[in-house]
């Protein structure tokens, strides 16, 4: 493709960055600028349009459930997720401690007679240059990689994903435009994701799912009082958050 793609083709490229338009965009400053404008409009949607319309949408949405629900397609992630890239698994509240991956996946428990609460599972996938792969704790990934998330929660709760960088700054990663995102109990692939800042260095992700949305300031305080840049490479203690919170953390090393 020698000419710049249409808006329609650009939208298609967002679904599949290995498309012809996606390959063109990767080398075209003008199209990169257009994608930036599209992102600005997406942010406007999240900040302005969505809050003003979501109530009416929910009130007027068809009440009859289809015979089969929509299938959320994440084609590039589906095959990867089959590898069950379960990274960090933790149980609720004060008893936060790692649980074996096999348990999280439904495998045999060491204490089958006393069923423990279902764990909180966070899976992270990094995409870069059209390649998507699961990320394990301590993995090095491209500094500008896009992250996608899958979570498994024991019950419905409010999810927030934030990060602490090696300069001590806390960033809100997910969801964009809102403090928290309501997730049902069970496994869910999260729509959208987060784009890393492109700056090499360590970054620790914190995924928390709280009974009620937690204010960004409260989460930032909890992170900064629990972990410091000098200690972030070590196992992080649970964040001090309300009872019923389930949480998970993961260390990323952003490479050049």
């Amino acid at each position: 493709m020698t000419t710049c793609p249409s808006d329609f083709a650009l939208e298609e490229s967002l679904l599949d960055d290995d498309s012809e338009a996606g390959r063109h965009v990767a080398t075209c400053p003008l199209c990169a600028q257009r994608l930036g404008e599209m992102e600005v409009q997406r942010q406007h949607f999240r900040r302005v349009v969505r809050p003003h319309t979501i109530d009416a949408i929910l009130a007027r949405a068809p009440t009859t459930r289809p015979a089969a629900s929509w299938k959320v397609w994440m084609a590039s992630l589906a095959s990867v997720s089959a590898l069950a890239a379960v990274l960090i698994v933790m149980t609720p509240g004060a008893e936060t401690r790692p649980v074996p991956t096999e348990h999280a996946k439904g495998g045999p428990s060491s204490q089958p007679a006393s069923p423990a609460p279902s764990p909180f599972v966070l899976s992270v996938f990094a995409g870069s240059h059209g390649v998507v792969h699961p990320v394990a704790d301590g993995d090095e990934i491209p500094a500008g990689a896009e992250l996608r998330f899958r979570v498994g929660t024991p019950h419905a709760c409010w999810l927030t994903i934030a990060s602490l960088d090696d300069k001590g700054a806390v960033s809100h990663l997910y969801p964009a435009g809102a403090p928290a995102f309501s997730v049902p109990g069970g496994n869910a692939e999260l729509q959208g994701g987060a784009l890393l800042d492109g700056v090499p260095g360590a970054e620790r992700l914190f995924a928390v799912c709280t009974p009620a949305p937690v204010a960004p300031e409260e989460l930032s305080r909890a992170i900064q009082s629990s972990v410091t840049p000098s200690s972030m490479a070590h196992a992080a203690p649970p964040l001090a958050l309300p009872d019923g919170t389930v949480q998970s953390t993961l260390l990323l090393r952003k490479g050049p």
Partner: protein
Amino acid sequence: VTPEQRRVVELYDQYGPVIYRRSLKLLRDPGLAQDATQEVFLTLLKEMPRETHPRSVLAWIFRTTTRHCMNVIRETGRRQRREDQVATYDWDLSVSPDQETLGDRRLAAAVLERFDPTTQAVAVAVLVDGMPHDEVARALDVSRKTVGRKLARFLDRARKHLVRSAT
């Protein structure tokens, strides 16, 4: 929040920005685009086949949002009774098959409303979006031949309309 509502919210987060971008481009008015986004998304919930691949959803959004926005423009024009308040476009008729130019954007918008929804969508896709015919055919789920035929008809009638208006 029920599971069904959560599903709706997830779909809105996924496709709402796509609808909004398209609406904003055609309507040039954030308020109208917001209303259009809401209406088109509700239509999507009602009409889209289940388990539809995102590429098909994208094409559906392109078609339906274009048609909806054309209706909004028509209704807006009727209400206002003033042609200069009808949304205008960056028409680029140099990409038309016979290299015609219309010139007057407002008149072009007025001409557009005389055609059926598919022809409107073809004209907007080619003349406003600058999309190649095969891409328009894919987005509108019609043949490439249909795209060419409808575009030629649109240009022919638009030209005659312009001649009549000029005289």
